[in-house]
C-alpha cells in the first residue's frame, strides 16, 4: 500500500491540534480538540472502508517506512503499518476520543487548553503504539503515553490524585524498562528492529523464557493482571471521567495488544511454558477482583475492579492459543473498551450532578432520570455479558477457547461472569432502583442532549457488536489464523487440551468457529 500516508496523518492531526490548543482560550481549545478528534474519526471511517480483508489481502497494510537514524548499529525508523488487530484497536481509539472530549466539555473547567492538549497527545501516542512496526518506535509510543496520563490524573483528578499519578507512572515504568532491555537483546541478536520480521523469528527456547518474562513484566502491569493491578483502581478513581474512559477503553488494551503482537508470536515456546502461570493468575484475578468489586462503596472503584476481571478473561483467551480464544479475547477487549467507557461515562454523568461517587448517596434514579436509567441498564447488561450485547460474544468465544485447553480454567473463568452479574446488578439496584428519598438526588435533572448523544453512540456500537460481530471478527480473521498457525508450528499448541471437545483432527476448529458465528447472529 503506497500513496496516502493515512497512519501518519492520523498521528499528525491530533499532534498539531494539541499544540494549537495551548495557544487558544478555553472555548477555543474545546472546539479545536473536538474538531481534531472528529476529523480523525472521519479518517478512521475512511480507513474502515479501505482496510482489506478476506482472501489475498496483505497482512500488513498502509505501510510506511523512513529510517530516522542509526545508533550503536541499531536502526530507528518511522515504520508504521497495521494488521487486523491493530486496525480494530485503532478504530476503537478513534471512536472513543470524541466521546472523551464531549464528556469533558462542561465538567472540566480549570486549565482547559492543557487538558485538551494532554488528551490529544494521548490519542497520538495510543494510535502510534498500535501502528508502530519498529520495535523502538513502539516503545517510544508505549512509554510516552505515561506523560500525558500522568498529567491528566495529577492535575484534573480527585482528592488522592497525586498518590495515584505516581503509582500509575512508576508501576508501569518499572515493568517497561525490563521490556526495553529485552528488546535490546532481541535487536542485537537478530539485527533488525522490524516487528513483522521478529514475529517470524525463532528465538532459542531458553532465551524465550527470559524474554517472555521481561515482556510479561511490562504487559502484566499494563493489562493489569493480578497481583500488579493495584495501580488501576487508584488511577481510575482519581482520574477525571474522560481520563477513566480512555484508561479503561484504550490504555488497558495495550497490555493485551502486547501479548498478541509480541509474547505469542515471538516467544511461542515460552508462552506455552507459562500458560499455567497466566491461567492461574487470571483465575485468581477473576474471582478475587470480582469479590472485591462486590463490596465497593465507590462506583468508579467497582467498575475498575470489574475491568481487572474482564481483562483476566482476555488473558485466558489469548493463552488458549486457539482461534476461538484469540477471537474472543479481541472481542472482549473491544467490547470492554466500549462498555467500560460507557459505564465510566454513566458514573461521570451523575458525579457531575452530585459530586460524589458513593453508591449510598444515590437511589431511585429511575424515577427522576428515566432516560439515564434505560441507558445505564443497557450498559450494565452488556457488562454482565447478556446475549445480544458486545461482551457476550467475546466472553463466550474466550471461554469456549479456554475450555478446549483447560476445563478447570474455563470453569473458574465462568464464575467470573456470574459474580459479574452479581456486582453489576447490585450496583444498579442501589443506584437506580429503590425509592427516591434523598432531596439532592431528587433535584438531579435527566440527561441533556450532549449526554444522550454520547451514550447513544456507545449503545449503538454495543448492540452492533453483539448482534453482528462478524463486522469485527472479519478484519482479524486472517491474522488469527496466522497466529494460531505460527503457535502450532512453533510450539504444537493444537495438541494442548484436557477436554477433548470434539473427537477428531484439529481442522474441526475453524468449522466450529464458523458455526459459532452463525449462532451469534
Amino acid at each position, binding site marked *: 500500500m503506497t500513496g496516502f500516508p493515512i497512519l501518519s496523518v492520523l498521528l499528525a492531526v491530533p499532534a498539531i491540534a494539541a499544540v494549537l490548543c*495551548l495557544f487558544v482560550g478555553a472555548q477555543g481549545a474545546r472546539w479545536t480538540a473536538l474538531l481534531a478528534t472528529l476529523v480523525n474519526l472521519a479518517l478512521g471511517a475512511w480507513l474502515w472502508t479501505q482496510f482489506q480483508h478476506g482472501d489475498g489481502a496483505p497482512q500488513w497494510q498502509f505501510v510506511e517506512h523512513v529510517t*530516522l*537514524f*542509526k*545508533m*550503536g*548499529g*541499531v536502526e*530507528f525508523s518511522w515504520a508504521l503499518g497495521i494488521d487486523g488487530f491493530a486496525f480494530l484497536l485503532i478504530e476503537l481509539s478513534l471512536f472513543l476520543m470524541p466521546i472523551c472530549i464531549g464528556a469533558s466539555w462542561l465538567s472540566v473547567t480549570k*486549565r482547559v487548553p*492543557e487538558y485538551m492538549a494532554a488528551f490529544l497527545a494521548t490519542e497520538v501516542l495510543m494510535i502510534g503504539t498500535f501502528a508502530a512496526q519498529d520495535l*523502538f518506535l513502539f*516503545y*517510544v*509510543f508505549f*512509554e*510516552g503515553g*505515561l*506523560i500525558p496520563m*500522568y*498529567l491528566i490524573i*495529577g*492535575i484534573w483528578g480527585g482528592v488522592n*490524585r*497525586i498518590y495515584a*499519578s*505516581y503509582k500509575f*507512572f*512508576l508501576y508501569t*515504568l*518499572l515493568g517497561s*524498562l*525490563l521490556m*526495553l*532491555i529485552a528488546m*535490546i*537483546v532481541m*535487536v*542485537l541478536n537478530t539485527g533488525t528492529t522490524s516487528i513483522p520480521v521478529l514475529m517470524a523469528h525463532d528465538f532459542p527456547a531458553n532465551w524465550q523464557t527470559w524474554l517472555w518474562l521481561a515482556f510479561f513484566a511490562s504487559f502484566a502491569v499494563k493489562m493489569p493482571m493480578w497481583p500488579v493491578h493495584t495501580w488501576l483502581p487508584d488511577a481510575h478513581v482519581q482520574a477525571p471521567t474522560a481520563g477513566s474512559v480512555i484508561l479503561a477503553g484504550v490504555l488497558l488494551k495495550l497490555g493485551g495488544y502486547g501479548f498478541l503482537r509480541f509474547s505469542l508470536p515471538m516467544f511461542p515456546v515460552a508462552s506455552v511454558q507459562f500458560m499455567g502461570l497466566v491461567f492461574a493468575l487470571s483465575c485468581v484475578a477473576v474471582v478475587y477482583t470480582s469479590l472485591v468489586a462486590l463490596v465497593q462503596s465507590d462506583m468508579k472503584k467497582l467498575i475498575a475492579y470489574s475491568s481487572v476481571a474482564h481483562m483476566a478473561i482476555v488473558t485466558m483467551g489469548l493463552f488458549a492459543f486457539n482461534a476461538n480464544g484469540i477471537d474472543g479475547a479481541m472481542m472482549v477487549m473491544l467490547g470492554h473498551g466500549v462498555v467500560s467507557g460507557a459505564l465510566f461515562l454513566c458514573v461521570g454523568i451523575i458525579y457531575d450532578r452530585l459530586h460524589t461517587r458513593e453508591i449510598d448517596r444515590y437511589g431511585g434514579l429511575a424515577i427522576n432520570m428515566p432516560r439515564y436509567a434505560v441507558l445505564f441498564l443497557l450498559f450494565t447488561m452488556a457488562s454482565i455479558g447478556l446475549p445480544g450485547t458486545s461482551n457476550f460474544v467475546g466472553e463466550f468465544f474466550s471461554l469456549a477457547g479456554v475450555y478446549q485447553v483447560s476445563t478447570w480454567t474455563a470453569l473458574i473463568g465462568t464464575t467470573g461472569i456470574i459474580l459479574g452479574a452479581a456486582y453489576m446488578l447490585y450496583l444498579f439496584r442501589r443506584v437506580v432502583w429503590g425509592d427516591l428519598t434523598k432531596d439532592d438526588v431528587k433535584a438531579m435533572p435527566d440527561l441533556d442532549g450532549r449526554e444522550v448523544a454520547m451514550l447513544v453512540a456507545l449503545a449503538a456500537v454495543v448492540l452492533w457488536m453483539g448482534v453482528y460481530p462478524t463486522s469485527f471478527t472479519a478484519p482479524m480473521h486472517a491474522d488469527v489464523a496466522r497466529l494460531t498457525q505460527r503457535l502450532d508450528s512453533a510450539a504444537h499448541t493444537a495438541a494442548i487440551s484436557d477436554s477433548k471437545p470434539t473427537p477428531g483432527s484439529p481442522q474441526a476448529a475453524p468449522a466450529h468457529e464458523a458455526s459459532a458465528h452463525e449462532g451469534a447472529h
Partner: protein
Amino acid sequence: MSYSTQLLMTLPELVLAAGSIVLMLVAAWGGQASTKLVSWASVALLAGAGIALAGPASTGGVAFGGLFRADAFATFAKVVIYAAAAVSILIAPGFFQRTSGEDLRPEYPVLILLSTVGMGMMVSAGDLLTLYVGLELQSLSAYILASFMRRDTRSAEAGLKYFVLGALASGILLYGISLVYGFAGTTLFDGIADAYSAATSGSQHTGLLFGLVFVFAGLAFKMSAVPFHMWTPDVYEGAPTPVTAYFASAPKVAAVAMAVRVAVDAMGPAILEWRQIVIFASLASIIFGAVAAIGQTNIKRLLAYSSINNVGFALIGLAAGGEEGVASVLLYMAIYVVMTIGGFLVVLQMRGEDGEQIETIASLSGMSRTRPGLALALAIFMFSLAGIPPLLGFFAKLGVFIAAVHAGLTVFATVGAAASTIGAYYYLKIVKTMYFDEPAPAFAGKTNLVEGGLIAISAVVISPIGWLVFGALGTWSLVAAKALF
C-alpha cells in the same frame, strides 16, 4: 613533523590561552567597566576556538612526542565543552545584575576561559602528566569560580570545600600516576598500555593494579561518581547559579571524556580489572544519586544529585567498552549537557521580589499557571532526565543500554534500567510541584532575551524535533569513538 604543524594542532588551546591572558590585562586596566567587553570577547574567543578545531586540531593525530592528541574524540568533547562554557558566560550578567551586592567582574569570563584551556588539555592528553596539568588548570579556576561571590558565605564555603576535597583528589590521582609510572616506566599512554598487556601476573601486575585503582579513584572524584561524590551537593548549592550550571556541564564532560581516554587508551588491556570498578561506581552513582535526591528541598542540590545519577548512566557505556560503548558515553554526555544547562537556566529565573535567588523546590508550586512556558520547559528537561520517551534523554539512555547489552553485560544493564525508576520519582516530583500543586507567589522579573532563547533552544533540541539532529550526532559520536581504537 615540524614544530609549527604540531603547534597548529593545539590551535584552539593557543587561541584560548593567549586570548585569556590578553583579556586578563584588559580586565586589569579596564576594571569593572570592561566586564561587558570581556564577556563578549570571551564568547567570541570560544567561537574562534571552535572554528580552529576544524583544521589540524581535529585530524592532526599525535603531537609533541605523544603528549598531546588532536583527534576526533577530543574534538567532540571540545565542541560540547566550548558550547557549555559560552553559555555559562552568557547567563552570568543577568544573574549578577539581579543579585544585589555582588557585581559581575571581568575575571569571571577570563577564569572560565582558563578553565576551558585546562579542559581542552584534559581531553587531548596522551600522557598522564599533560592530563594532570590540564586537570589542575581546570580545577584551580573552578575553585575560584565557586567562591566568586565574595560576600556570600555559602559561596565562600563552597569554594573552600571544593578546594580542600579537590586537592585531596588530586593527591590521590597523583599517587596513582606515580604508581603507574613506577611500574610501567613511562607516563605516556601507549607505553602504559604496553606495560598492562605485558604484565599479566607477578608483582608488576599488582603494582599496576594499585596504580589503576588510585587513578580511577581520582577520576571518579572529578566526575563526582559515588563513592567520591560527597563534595558535589555542597559545592553546587553554594556556588553562584551560573557557575553551578557550568560545573554541571563542561567540567563534567571533560572529566568523563578524560576518564574514557585513560581507561581505553592507557589501560585498555586491563579492561577486565577496571570494568569492575566502573560497574560498581556506575550502579552506586545511579542508585545513590537517585535515592539521595528524593529528600532534597533545594533545587540546586537536587540537580547536583541528578548529575551524580547521570554520570552513573554514562559510566554504563564506559563499562561496556569498545567503540559503541565510547560513542554512547559521548552521546550521553552531549545530551546530558543540554538537559542540565536547560534545567539550570530555569533555576536562574527563580527570583523573588527584590531579585534574590529562590532555590526551594516548594517555590516552584503551580508554576504551570504563573509561568506556563517556563514550567513546560522544565517539565521537558525533567522528563528527559528521567529518560522518558519521546524525549532525547531516552535515546541517550537507550544508547548506553544497547552498548552494555552488546558487551554481554545484560544483568548490569537490567539493574541500571530498573534503578532508573527510582530516579524517575524525584524528577516527577518537580513536575508534580509545578503542575499539580496550588500556585505559590509567582517569580518576579522577566526572562531576558538571551536566557529565554537558550531555554527555548534547549527544550526544542530535547523534544522530538531533536530526532532530526540526533542522527548526525550519533554518527559523529561514532567517528569520535573510533579515534580511540
